Every structure is written in structure tokens, then in C-alpha cells.
């Protein structure tokens, strides 16, 4: 029962990461990220109940607050203030990108299969799914031109790593988890400032415009 729940929720989280590739509107992309964070918080709470860990339950609550509510609000505010609602064309078109994602999922199973097999925890079966989420987040970061979508890709990557740690070892120690949340929150706030500055200086948030620094 518990292993299939872990599998199901990990699968949904990966699905959300892939959905980011096909969503055209920035607000929609932010909602996809918030949804994924909620799924992860749910899974963390389930693991906490299963393992009887109060700390992990706290982690789930903080995750829901920061990545499910606070960061999406910050990003929505940025979308509204910049006045851009459509995501810019990615380097690869959605069909091509989906093909790449398929390849990444296969690669994830190839790399993480042995790790999952050697892991005795009931959640271990879903480890390759979590790693696939990491790779898809990485791919979104490099495939998108616009600063905001790159930030979302980075956040998806972070979520994937959180899931990986959750499945591998029921999460990392509490203090480390809190430190990571703090870093991610500060990084997003800094990136928000940068999207404004980029918009001001380059009159677009297309990072493809930024190519003065060479050689």
C-alpha cells in the first residue's frame, strides 16, 4: 500500500515536471510548480506518518508553505509586474522536447536502477522517477530562453532532489533541509529582482539577448 502510494505520487510529480514543457502561459507554469510542491508535501507527510517522524512532518509543512504558497506568490507577482504572460519560444519545440524527456526518463532508470535495487526502503522503487524529475528540471532550465521559466526549471530540479532524498533516506537531517529551503527562498527573491533589472536594461526577459560577454 505505502510503496504504491510513493510510486503514484512520484509519478505525478514527474508528470508535473514534464507538463512544464508544454504549458504556454507563465501563470500556468507557476501553478504547475505549486501543484508539484503540494504533491511532494503530501508524500513527505505520508512518509512521516509511515516512519513515525515528527521532524519530517515539520519539513512537509515548511515545504508546503514555502514552495507551495510563498514562492508561487512571488513568481505570480513578477509575472504581473513584468506584464508578460506568454512564455517565449523554447530552443526546442514541445514535441522535440518531449522526445528528449523520454530519453531522460530512460537514462534515469539506467543510472539509478542499481541504486534503487540496493536500497532496502519501501520507497526505493520510485528513486528513478525522482531522478528523472531532476533531469527534466535541468533540461527545462537549459531549454528556455526566458528568465522566469529558467527559474521554474531550477525550482523543479530542486523539487526533484528533495524527492530523491525523501525516497533514498527519508530525507536529510532537519537542519540541512531547513538550510536548503532558506537558500532556495533567497535565490528566488534575488532572481525576482534580476528579472526586473533584466527587463529594465534589455527591454525583454529573453536571456538569449544577453550575449555581450564572450571569449
Amino acid at each position, binding site marked *: 500500500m505505502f510503496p504504491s502510494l510513493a510510486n503514484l505520487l512520484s509519478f505525478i510529480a514527474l508528470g508535473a515536471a514534464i507538463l512544464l514543457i508544454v504549458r504556454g502561459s507563465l501563470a500556468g507554469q507557476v501553478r504547475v510548480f505549486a501543484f508539484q510542491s503540494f504533491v511532494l508535501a503530501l508524500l513527505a507527510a505520508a512518509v512521516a506518518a509511515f516512519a513515525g517522524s515528527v521532524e519530517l512532518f515539520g519539513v512537509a509543512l515548511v515545504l508546503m508553505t514555502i514552495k507551495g504558497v510563498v514562492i508561487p506568490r512571488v513568481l505570480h507577482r513578477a509575472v504581473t509586474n513584468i506584464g508578460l504572460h506568454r512564455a517565449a519560444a523554447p530552443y526546442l519545440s514541445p514535441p522535440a522536447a518531449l522526445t528528449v524527456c523520454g530519453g531522460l526518463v530512460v537514462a534515469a532508470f539506467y543510472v539509478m536502477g542499481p541504486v534503487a535495487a540496493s536500497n532496502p526502503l519501501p520507497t526505493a522503487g520510485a528513486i528513478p522517477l525522482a531522478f528523472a524529475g531532476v533531469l527534466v528540471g535541468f533540461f527545462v532550465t537549459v531549454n528556455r530562453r526566458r528568465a522566469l521559466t529558467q527559474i521554474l526549471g531550477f525550482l523543479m530540479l530542486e523539487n526533484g532532489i528533495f524527492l530523491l*532524498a525523501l525516497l533514498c*533516506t527519508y530525507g536529510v537531517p532537519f537542519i*540541512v533541509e531547513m538550510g536548503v529551503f532558506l537558500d532556495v527562498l533567497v*535565490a528566488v527573491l534575488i532572481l525576482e529582482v534580476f528579472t526586473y533589472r533584466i527587463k529594465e536594461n*534589455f527591454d525583454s526577459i529573453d536571456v538569449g539577448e544577453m550575449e555581450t*560577454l564572450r571569449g
Partner: protein
Amino acid sequence: MTLIALPLIPLVAAGLIALAGRRAWMETVHALAAVGTLGAGLAVAAQALRSGPVVALDGFLRADALSALMIAVIALLGGVAALYAPGYARLAFDAAHAGRARTLFGLFHLFIFTMLLAVCTDNLGVMWVAIEGTTLATVFLVNLHGTRTSLEAAYKYLILSSVGIALAFIGTVLMYYAGAAQAGEIAVNWTSLRAAASSLNPQVVRLAFVFILVGYGTKMGLAPMHTWLPDAHSEAPAPISALMSGVLLNVGLYAVMRFRAVADVAAGPDFAGRLLMGLGLLSLTVASVFLLRQRNYKRMLAYSSVEHMGVICLGLGFGGPWGVLGALLHAINHALSKSLLFILSGNILLKYRTTEIHRVRGLLHVSPLTGGAFLAGTLALIGLPPFGLFISEFIILRAGLEGDAVWVAAGGIVLLVIAFAGVLRSVNQMLYGRPDEDLPRGDALTWSLAPLTVNFALLLVTGLTLPPALLGALNQVLQVIG
């Protein structure tokens, strides 16, 4: 006690500077904090080297010989850069940009705090948080001059470093898993991981080390993950460039060395060694190509950092006591010479108001002190005697030639010669030639350069005599991670 005070001093200073009313107050807090950090840092380092690891807060903070070496470098070069910063800020940011001085001083100490925390904690997860913190503390500093290019550099720096270091977190999680699966419920402490190293699952450790090396290698500026480095290091204000190139890269190296010590025991020494040699050789290749046709002197210094990080990786990859000892010594020497040159580059920028090599003419004639020191620093950097880098490069290459990596070492020598020629050609163009007639003679800042005598003195010490105290310290580090 001192170990707790050490990271607290810069952290409190950053807070006070954010609250300080007048510029004079900011500068006072800044100077006091720099001196305090230097004193506490040297005290902790001496204690750790004399009487073994210093521990505080139930083992959360722990400084062994390797930490001591890093603390000494951070505290010393942090002090040198701190003494240069007020003068630079006064000339670079006029009254209209007074806010930038506050950002510079405040984030300077936050930056020092994150680096000290990274090398003073036994918890590998907290170390990761602190190293990501170094990126967050410096990103606004890269953008401090407010130009379009600095904005571009800062954005790329933040995204690339954050994504890169996220990969290091995967490696940390996998190491934690390898340790937890073996020893039951162990914390992510380096000491327990190292103690259990021989019984860890080698397959998981190999996978973990690949992520660690790519992740922290990004912070170290190893090719092909180096692309953010020339941008960020060249756009940041000079005192910050000096710390980013001279000290922060070593913090990335520190993380790699910690994990290498575990991986060598768990997965055999060849595995990490080959990866390090590969990345080292690639970094040397990329850097020497870009050094040959460099048009911007700050970017030239930045690419030279990629080159020297490559040399250090070769030393670690060759392994054995001499390879690792050479790598440690080279890390110190590079830190001394690179922070020196970046601080001097600040003087050049303040004088000529350009970072382009072909627009800097007759430096020796225009600013004799800056020019002379820049020449001497360059000779040290490219590895000429009597300076320390000559000795450490020699030790590293000999370790390779006498081991079974003869061809790698030979390739390294060829690439070092190419980089040598590239740097010397560029610096020659700057030193000589006819300067603009209307450029006033004199150095932009003179007394602010006084601390650089410490760098020169230490470079001569490591180049002419390897004092027993230093060799003893390096041997202790070898005991910890060798």
C-alpha cells in the same frame, strides 16, 4: 569558544553595516570586523594545527588541519581585500552611489561568513548550504557596478552556480544514503562517513562522487562548467574579484578534497584520480586557448584561475603524498598571487577606466608602484622562481612524471607553457608603450596597497624556503585527507 566567535564576527558585522547611519561608521565596523576575523581565524588555525581538531557545539563546528589551512587563507586574504575596499569604494562610488558602498561592505562580510561556515562545519549538508550561500552573498556584488554586462554576468553566475551546486547536493544525498545504509542511522558528518568509508557500497559512492565533482567543480571553475567564471570574476569590484578568485575557488576545492578522501577509500584511488586528471587537463586546455587571445585583463586573470584550478586537479589526480601536497601548496600560492593581482587590477581600472588590454598603455610609466607590483605578481603567477608557484607546479608535475601518468604530466607542461606565453604577452602590452598624454601620472591608491607586501613575502617564503612549520602543517593535512 574562538571557533564559535569566528563565523559570528563577520555575520554580526554584516548586520551592523546594514544598520549603520553614516559612511564613517560603516568603514569603522568594516575595518574592526576584518581585523577581528583575521585574529580569530589565525587563533583557531594555530590551535587546530598545534593540538588537533577544535570542536564546538557538539561537533557541529569542527576545524581539523585541512579546515585550519582554509581558515588561515580566508582570514588572511579577507583582511588584505578588506583593507583595500574602503579606498576603492571611495573612488569608484561617489556620493550619488553611496548605497553601493553599504552593499559592498555588508555583503563582503556576509560572504566571509558563508565561506568560514563552509570550512568549519563537520556536517556535509550544512557545508552545501553554506557554499550555496557564498553564491547568494556575492551575486549582488557582481552586479554592483550596475552596468548591463555586470547584470548579464550576475544572472548567469546565479543560475549556473545554483544549478551546478544542486548536482552536488544529489551527490551529498547519495553519500548520505551510502553511509546510512551501512552504519544504520548516522548523521551526514564527514568524520563518520570517513570512518565508515571502507564498508560503503562502492557503486553508490562512485555515482555520488561524479555528482560531487561536477557540482563543486562548477564552483571551482573547472571546464566545461567554468563559463560563468570569467564573466563574474571580471565584472565584480576588485576587492571582491580578489576573494572570489583567490579564496572562493579554494572553498569549492575544499569540498572536492573532503569527498575525494572518502571516495578513495570506498571506491579505490584510481576512480577519483582519473576523473580529476581528466577535468584538470580539460581546464588547462580551455584556459590556455582563451589566455592566448585575451583582450580584457580582468578576464585574463579569471581564465588564469581556471588554469590553476586545473593544475591543482592534476596534483590531486596524480595522488600520492607528493601529488596532494603539491596541490595544497599550489592552492595557497595561487590564492596569494591571484588576490594580489586582482587588487592591483582595481588600481588599473580606477586609473584607466577601462578593462581592455589594448587601451592600457605604459602602466609602468603612469603608475610605477601598481605597474611594478603587477609585473612581479604576473611573474609569480606564471610560475617563475623565486616565487612559490614555481615550486608547487614543480612538485605536482614531478609527482605525475614519476607516477604512471607521464603523458598527462607532459601534456600539462605544454599547456602551462602556452598559458605562460599568453599571459606574458598581454601583460607586456599593458606595461610598456606610450600612455595618453592627458592621463595624470601617479597611482590611484597607494597606501591601500600596503597589505600586498604580505602576499609578496609569503610567496617568497614558499618559493625560496619551505619552512618546517608550513611543511608540518601540510603533513597534518595529508594525515587527514591523504
